[in-house]
């Protein structure tokens, strides 16, 4: 390594400026900490090296939660989206999910400007290659060109760049995504400091020249007429704009035949790939093997931006060799004559075993060292952004000697995400999914602000105006629900005519408006004609009123489940407990518990290898304390 004596001092160092690093750096700087963010290339700030969209099922929830806490992702996509859709609207409100297609270049550039203009924040192009750790606490980092940056806290957000290796069939390059430089030196420093690493793999499909695609053979997918912004602070009028289309097409038996015939040339099936891939975001090879009886698989053809002809073929990521790729893509209706601009490829990278982290995303064994994003074994921009935000906030809290921000499983998808990562020993890239959240009826995308804004305010990322707006919203919702529960309509002719017109049972006597909203065929909006004294309220308030009344029974039952969950979370376990001394525990359980040192009975119960019987022993043990 190059030796220089150049040093600088910061409060917080952030390593990496992808989706996690951006949130971490912004949060820390906005909380008043002197912050520096390192990136291997300033051109790759907030790069979207894979899919050209933000949000989607459960990921949309994460973006809204990031926004509720004072993060940037939602605002940035609101400024740069080119199509927006609310997914799953035929399902319940818990699984409604916002997804927006991004103009990738615009997204990256816009975020870069936000970083560059952020007070307290320095952006620096350099490869961090060494951690300086003394007495179990982080002191700073060294960069490849020789400089030393001392800091109170460091946040590692290296994404997929650590010892990255890209594979396209037999062609292997030692680069990060999009041919960017890999970060090859930091791994050694991590290992030297006793950090356990995993090697994960992910992949991306080909980008195809739009001019070579026959869209007439595909199904057009338009955006929503009424666009809902991601950010609670975005003016809904500002997102009214012309949108571009995506297209739906399918693979077929011919595609699958080509893939099967060339499986031996796939680096995964040939055993060249060492890393573990995500089961929930499989390559087309995986899908053909795993769902062998499926005759076709969906493909979405999505534009990469307004100023490029590149189209992203969603659903068809691959690491097969170039010639096989060309052949297989050309079997797809509309892609018969396609020209590939960029090949599909798989990427392998180093990341950590996240069970080494606390819920604050600080390393259990190294004070002041935090981690976020794909470096923690997750996958996806939104998962990265969420962790980056929490890691950045907590690095700041650490410097300020304040309590860390911890979101539990009943408060947000972010809580589920982090708790799963630090507790569940996932040995594959972790992707957020609706099913991972037990209390999802309470954790809707529509109420992320009501759930988390106060926490954002307490931390200091939400300003007084935003906070007061939240309080007003809460009051409006509460008052309107109260009004609907106490406003009766009688069984007069006008009302009965209305009921008949809605195919709803006629009234036998007076009934509160709230009860009408509960009927399956009615809702808050549809009973407006018989609600004479209805106050004028914003869309988002009306939506909350409707959901809270209509699904009250379910919401109450879910709240009971949360109460039971909280009881076990509140039973704290001290770090000093030596579990091997508790005789009733099975050997596997006591050794797991000693490794994890869970903070509560609740967390202990989620560790694999700790059985309900072991938890009972712990509970009884606690009553004896």
């Amino acid at each position, binding site marked *: 390594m190059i030796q220089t004596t150049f040093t600088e001092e910061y409060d917080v160092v952030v390593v990496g400026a992808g989706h996690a690093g951006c949130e971490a750096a912004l949060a820390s700087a906005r909380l008043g900490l002197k912050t520096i963010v390192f990136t291997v290339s300033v051109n790759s700030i907030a790069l979207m090296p894979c899919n050209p969209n933000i949000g989607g*099922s*459960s990921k949309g929830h994460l973006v809204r939660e990031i926004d509720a806490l004072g993060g940037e992702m939602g605002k940035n996509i609101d400024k740069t989206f080119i199509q927006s859709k609310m997914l*799953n609207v*035929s*399902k*319940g409100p*818990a*699984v409604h999910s916002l997804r927006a297609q991004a103009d990738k270049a615009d997204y990256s550039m816009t975020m870069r400007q936000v970083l560059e203009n952020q007070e307290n924040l320095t952006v620096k192009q350099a490869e961090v290659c060494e951690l300086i750790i003394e007495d179990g606490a982080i002191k700073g980092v060294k960069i490849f060109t020789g400089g030393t940056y001392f800091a109170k806290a460091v946040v590692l957000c290296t994404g997929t760049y650590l010892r990255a290796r890209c594979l396209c069939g037999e062609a292997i390059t030692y680069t990060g995504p999009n041919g960017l430089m890999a970060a090859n030196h930091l791994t050694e420093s991590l290992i030297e400091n006793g950090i356990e690493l995993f090697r994960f793999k992910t992949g991306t499909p080909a980008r195809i020249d739009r001019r070579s695609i026959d869209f007439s053979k595909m199904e057009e997918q338009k955006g929503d007429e009424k666009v809902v912004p991601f950010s609670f602070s975005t003016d809904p009028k500002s997102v009214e704009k012309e949108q571009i289309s995506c297209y739906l097409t399918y693979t077929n038996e011919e595609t699958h035949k080509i893939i099967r015939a060339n499986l031996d040339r796939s680096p995964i099936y040939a055993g060249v790939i060492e890393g573990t891939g995500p089961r*929930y975001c499989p390559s087309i090879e995986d899908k053909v093997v795993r*769902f062998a009886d*499926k005759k076709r*698989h*969906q493909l979405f053809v999505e534009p990469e931006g307004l100023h490029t002809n590149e189209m992203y073929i969603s659903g068809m990521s691959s690491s097969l060799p170039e010639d096989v790729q060309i052949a297989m893509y050309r079997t797809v209706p509309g892609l018969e004559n396609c020209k590939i601009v960029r090949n599909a490829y798989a990427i392998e990278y180093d990341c950590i075993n996240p069970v080494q982290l606390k819920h604050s995303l600080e390393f259990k064994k190294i004070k002041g060292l935090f981690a976020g994003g794909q470096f923690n074994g997750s996958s996806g921009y939104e998962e990265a952004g969420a962790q980056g935000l929490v890691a950045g906030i907590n690095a700041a809290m650490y410097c300020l000697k304040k309590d860390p921000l911890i979101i539990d499983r009943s408060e947000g998808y972010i809580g589920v995400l982090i708790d799963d990562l630090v507790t569940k020993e996932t040995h594959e890239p972790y992707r957020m*999914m*609706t*099913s991972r959240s*037990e209390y*999802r*009826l309470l954790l809707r995308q529509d109420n992320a602000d009501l759930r988390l804004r106060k926490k954002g305010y307490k931390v200091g990322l939400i300003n007084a105006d935003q906070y007061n707006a939240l309080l007003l919203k809460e009051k409006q919702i509460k008052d309107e629900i109260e009004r609907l529960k106490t406003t009766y309509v009688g069984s007069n002719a006008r009302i009965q005519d209305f009921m008949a017109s809605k195919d709803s049972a006629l009234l036998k006597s007076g009934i509160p408006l709230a009860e009408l909203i509960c009927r*399956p065929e009615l809702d808050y909006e549809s009973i407006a004609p018989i609600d004479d004294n209805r106050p004028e309220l914003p869309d988002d308030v009306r939506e909350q009123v409707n959901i809270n009344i209509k*699904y009250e*029974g*379910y919401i109450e*039952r*879910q709240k009971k*489940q949360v109460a*039971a969950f909280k*009881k*076990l979370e509140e*039973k704290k376990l001290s770090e000093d407990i030596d579990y091997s001394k*508790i*005789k*009733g525990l099975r050997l596997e359980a006591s050794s797991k518990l000693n490794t994890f040192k869970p903070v509560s*009975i609740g967390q202990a*119960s989620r560790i694999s290898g700790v059985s*309900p*019987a072991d*938890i*009972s*022993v712990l*509970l*009884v*043990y606690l*009553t*004896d*304390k």
Partner: protein
Amino acid sequence: MNTDTIAAIATGMTPSGIGIIRVSGEDAFKVASSVFLKKNGKIPEAYENRKAYFGYVHDNGTVLDEVILLTFVAPSSFTGENTAEIQCHGGILMMQKILELCLNNGARAAMPGEFTKRAFLNGKMDLSESEAVMDVIASKNDLALKNSVKQLRGSLYEKITDIREKILYETAFIESALDDPEHFDLEGYPDKLSVKLLSILHDLEKLSDSFDDGRILSEGVRTVILGKPNVGKSSLLNILAGSERAIVTEIAGTTRDTIEEKINIGGVLLHVIDTAGIRESDDIVEQIGVRKAMEMAEDADLVIMVVDSSTPLTPEDEEILGFIRTHEKKCVILLNKSDLESVIGPEEIACYTNNPVIMISAKDETGIDELKEFIVREYSKGLLKYNDEIFITNIRQKEALNSAIASLLCVAKSITEKMPEDFYSIDLTAAYESLGLIIGEQVDDDVIEEIFGKFCMGK
């Protein structure tokens, strides 16, 4: 963790033949040495595992009672700790005196459930076993305990696990469809789920009803012995039970004042229900007893009628024979007192019923083998019904079952109201968790409190 030494009266606070004071903990033997002397007036030199010492309890030299001291060395005891059990005469006053003596000599009064809690913490039993202890606390009998534990770990466990797996499968399917709609289709799913729910609900309701019945009956051929007073029913029962006598459970609080007994006859488990009629008591009660016995016999799988062959048939006998004729029950008629001169033979009985008749003498124990052969033969031919139905016996289990039922009814309601499928999982999950509470697969700290708080002192 507390490792001090605790003591309590392990038998109920009612007068009984034998009273037991249990002392458990590191210093259990030290306590024993302070209060117990062997018959020869000496303190045992060493306390061996599972050994009985005959001697007396004394208070500074004053003999209180002649007792047997049983010692168990850790970890081979109920609690997993050193344990001394003093078996004294069962007067309440005596038991209390001895307990007080132990407390004055280094032991502390045990909290409710503390012995079992220690057993649990020392890995001697799991949570559901602990709860089983609570269930049979009234019987205060280790055999009963084992039986109840077996029941809990056995069929009920399997049944609940089976239902939980079914529920889990549905939840997983819905979740998969939400996360991967391309590969999991929910088209027509609500109707399919409705059908499955009905069958699960049916099973759960049946289990729940088993509690309401108050039929705390377990495995075995449900057997009732009928006969007028003093024909020898109790003698017969005693002969049959003999050394194979398994358990006697008094079921307090049920409307039927019965004693239920398990008897193993050549490998066939009889579940004999004794009515009050079997007890020797005054005539009025006996009358009620016979009626009651016939009521019980309505549900029986096997009826054994005992007739006194030395005296002519009475109207009571005829009433019972009438009952047998009108009820198609597997039945055998025993002509007892064959040691005396008989005035009734099989041919008299044949006027009333075609059921087999066996001559016995409870006094000489003759004819008993024939009866046993008859039972084994009928059983092996599959002509005797064997009750292996699962039942629940504990109010907490019933509550958990009912809350699971309520949750599944909510799912059914969601389906009827055409709610989106993602709403189902809230209540499916709740049902899954409620059922988990029954078998200890779901943890709830209230249950822990309840289990260890409700125990009587000595357990």
